[in-house]
């Protein structure tokens, strides 16, 4: 265990860290924490053991997670019933509970410490450096790992120009999606005339399937705040806003607490750290509009208006909030700043690729074994992320595509797995770094349906101000919908591509300019799937409802009654020893029968592009069993 970590566990005490991230909370971690606290008190070991909460560790798949420091022992899938054993064996008798260790799915070996688990061992955590290790509700924890040291260094030892130069030299590019140089952006704002400037943190995180900014705000709010104060000092701003997405109440709560603590510590407010630099921060909660993540829309929203983007220039750095020079940075960009100032631009720029420095955080989800929040150096390959860290595809299915960058990004096929990823390589492949959502899809995902899904999202979130985005996405969605319904016609693909190029070129803001990406990439890499839908009315993945039917294979059905009982619309007919048959007229294609049919029978088939076989006759449906033969 490093010196730093030991410092957190305050003078030789054992610390039990219970994850209180959103994933773990939804599987009972608050109850586990309570049981631990109670149990420790009852056992009278409260003076040597302390229970702490932390934000997300990233490995949500294995939650609820309990970590014991200073050993670094990692317990996963903990339940309340496990608590007495943890207390008795580990905390009292210093014998870790092996039963709760993580088991490597490859080797089957039990792994005691998180540092040795493949999921963590192959990551490099710079932005997520504190997530899961410190209590986000205690500034002392943050101070113990060197928190606010960077602010001290910047304010007391560097001029704003020097701070900007350092950030420029580090090569940091904005993590909000576009990847613009953060230092250059600051310099631009610094050089804009006028006494009043604003510093804004963009925590709107609208990508539907990504939660890294939320996790950072919940697990390590002080890093973001510290980065923000340094940025404000560099550009010469006295007032700032943190704009947080409406669905993130816990993040708002922890931010408010952190701001209060930072103020008490003299890091926010008047005469920060005894200098004559003043900076105040407000929190603004979004009200539910994806487009507000776009910087000019975000400004309109803070001003109390409808969140509609406006053309740039003028850029916010010249004329932003209330017409004043304004800098807007993403949560991850800001959380990186303190490390750059503390460890220096040279250290930071030694990580990553030539044009994309540092690390990238991804929310790795979908049909992957290890869902969670991960961080790798720029230049890591998709293969390393999906297989080495992510543990491969769930249930041994075949990889089909990975969607990167959310509604603005694209779907990349297997041939892209060896691509070293950074800002430029992803754009080159038609995807985008975007926010950092990375959704893995297997053979049971339909790419036409995926394109339709993303477009229905952007179409729904289009603010309606410019015509190409408002109407173009609508027409594209109509075409995609008819293809998924088996009503596509020859020429639809070409029409989609033409419309997509039009919408990309002529939309006002990034929403419309990137909305066609999921469509274009799926056509580029999975055109045959589109053609199957259009020509043969077949959905190869068995997803598009209008094109599929569920059918029980009479040769496999063992009349076990499970699907029959679970069918929500009572569309399955059959009985004991009577092979089950699906009434195709009643069936709503919810897929319940497929998911509940015991794998040893595996009798439910998805049929697409061919007629459903007629059901067996009454006599053929009778199963006669030899005596003693189980069902």
């Amino acid at each position, binding site marked *: 265990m490093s010196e730093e970590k030991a410092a957190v566990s305050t003078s030789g005490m054992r610390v039990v860290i219970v994850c209180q991230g959103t994933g773990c909370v939804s599987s009972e971690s608050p109850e586990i924490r309570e049981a631990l606290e109670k149990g420790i008190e009852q056992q009278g070991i409260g003076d040597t053991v302390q229970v702490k909460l932390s934000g997300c560790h990233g490995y*949500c798949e294995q939650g609820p997670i309990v970590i014991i420091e200073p050993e670094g022992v990692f317990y996963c899938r903990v339940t309340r019933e496990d608590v007495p054993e943890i207390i008795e064996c580990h905390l009292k008798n210093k014998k870790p509970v092996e039963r709760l260790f993580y088991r490597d799915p490859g080797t089957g070996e039990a792994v005691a410490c998180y540092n040795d688990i493949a999921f963590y061992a192959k990551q490099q955590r710079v932005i997520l450096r504190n997530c899961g290790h410190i209590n986000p509700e205690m500034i002392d924890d943050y101070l113990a790992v060197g928190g606010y040291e960077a602010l001290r260094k910047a304010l007391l030892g560097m001029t704003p120009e020097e701070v900007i130069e350092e950030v420029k030299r580090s090569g940091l590019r904005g993590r909000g999606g576009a990847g613009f140089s953060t230092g250059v952006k600051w310099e631009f704002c610094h050089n804009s005339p006028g006494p009043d400037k604003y510093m804004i943190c963009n925590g709107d995180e609208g990508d539907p399937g990504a939660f890294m900014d939320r996790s950072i705000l919940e697990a390590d709010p002080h890093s973001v705040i510290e980065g923000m104060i340094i940025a404000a000092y560099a550009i010469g701003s006295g007032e700032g806003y943190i704009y947080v997405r409406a669905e993130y109440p816990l993040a708002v709560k922890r931010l408010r607490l952190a701001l209060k603590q930072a103020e008490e510590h003299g890091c926010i407010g008047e005469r920060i750290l005894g200098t004559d630099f003043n900076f105040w921060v407000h929190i603004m909660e*979004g009200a539910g*509009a994806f487009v507000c993540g776009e910087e000019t829309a975000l400004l309109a929203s803070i001003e109390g208006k*409808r969140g509609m983007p406006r053309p740039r220039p003028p850029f916010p750095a010249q004329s932003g909030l209330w017409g004043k020079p304004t800098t807007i940075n993403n949560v991850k960009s800001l959380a990186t700043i303190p490390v750059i100032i503390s460890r220096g631009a040279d250290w930071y720029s030694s990580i990553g690729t030539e044009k994309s420095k540092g690390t990238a955080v991804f*929310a790795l*989800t979908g049909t992957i074994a290890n*869902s969670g929040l991960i961080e790798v150096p720029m230049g890591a390959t998709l293969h390393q992320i999906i297989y080495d860290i992510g543990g491969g595809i769930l249930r041994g299915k075949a990889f089909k595509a990975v969607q990167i960058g959310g509604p603005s990004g694209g779907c990349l096929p297997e041939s892209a797995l060896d691509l070293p990823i950074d800002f430029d390589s992803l754009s080159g492949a038609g995807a985008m770094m975007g926010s950092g959502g990375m959704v893995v*899809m297997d053979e049971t995902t339909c790419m036409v349906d995926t394109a339709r899904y993303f477009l229905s999202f952007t179409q729904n979130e289009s*603010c309606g101000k410019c015509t190409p985005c408002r109407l173009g996405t609508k027409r594209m969605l109509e075409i995609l919908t008819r293809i998924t319904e088996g009503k596509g016609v020859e020429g639809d693909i070409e029409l989609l591509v033409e419309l997509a190029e039009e919408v990309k070129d002529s939309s006002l803001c990034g929403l419309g300019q990137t909305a066609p990406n999921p469509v274009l990439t799926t056509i580029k890499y999975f055109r045959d799937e589109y053609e199957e839908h259009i020509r043969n009315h077949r959905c190869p993945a068995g997803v598009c409802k209008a094109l599929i039917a569920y059918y029980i294979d009479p040769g496999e059905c063992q009349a076990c009654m499970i699907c029959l009982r679970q069918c929500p619309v009572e569309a399955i007919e059959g009985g004991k020893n009577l092979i089950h048959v699906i009434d195709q007229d009643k069936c709503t294609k919810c897929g319940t029968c497929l998911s509940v049919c015991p794998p040893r029978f595996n009798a439910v088939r998805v049929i697409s592009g061919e007629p459903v076989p007629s059901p067996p006759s009454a006599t053929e449906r009778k199963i006669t069993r030899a005596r003693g033969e189980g069902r």
Partner: protein
Amino acid sequence: MSNDVDLSLLDPILKKYQSQEGALITMLQEIQAVYGYLSEVVLTHLSREVKVPLSQIYGVVTFYAQFYLTPRGRNIIRVCRGTACHVRGGSRILEAVEREVGITEGETTPDLEYSLETVACIGACALAPTMVINEKTYGKLTPKKVMESLSRKDRKEREVE
């Protein structure tokens, strides 16, 4: 019904943001927290007090998904329609919920028991597909689990009452 709205509940909010430029959205959020939704009476009163045209307030209210012009149910069901949930069968979960409570996305049951909404990612993607009922998150859902958590029987009884 509009007659018995207690407009005095607005006073502290109006006072707090009186002089603040651009506080409209924050005010609307706080007002909604008090009344549960934004009624015409309340918005008209607000418009007069802050001297912002009602049409402009209406424009803002209808732009953002989190503002409601009609009362909402006592229980709010939010089904995730995020990407991870979609890939793991989220649309079937939404259908199952719709079937169980008998309303579609964006609606409220006539007895004000349930409102059904969708949300883009609740941040528990590892547990996909997911939904949230009030504060509680339900993960790794199947249509069957949905039926259990929203027990149809329970609802039937209430309908009979």
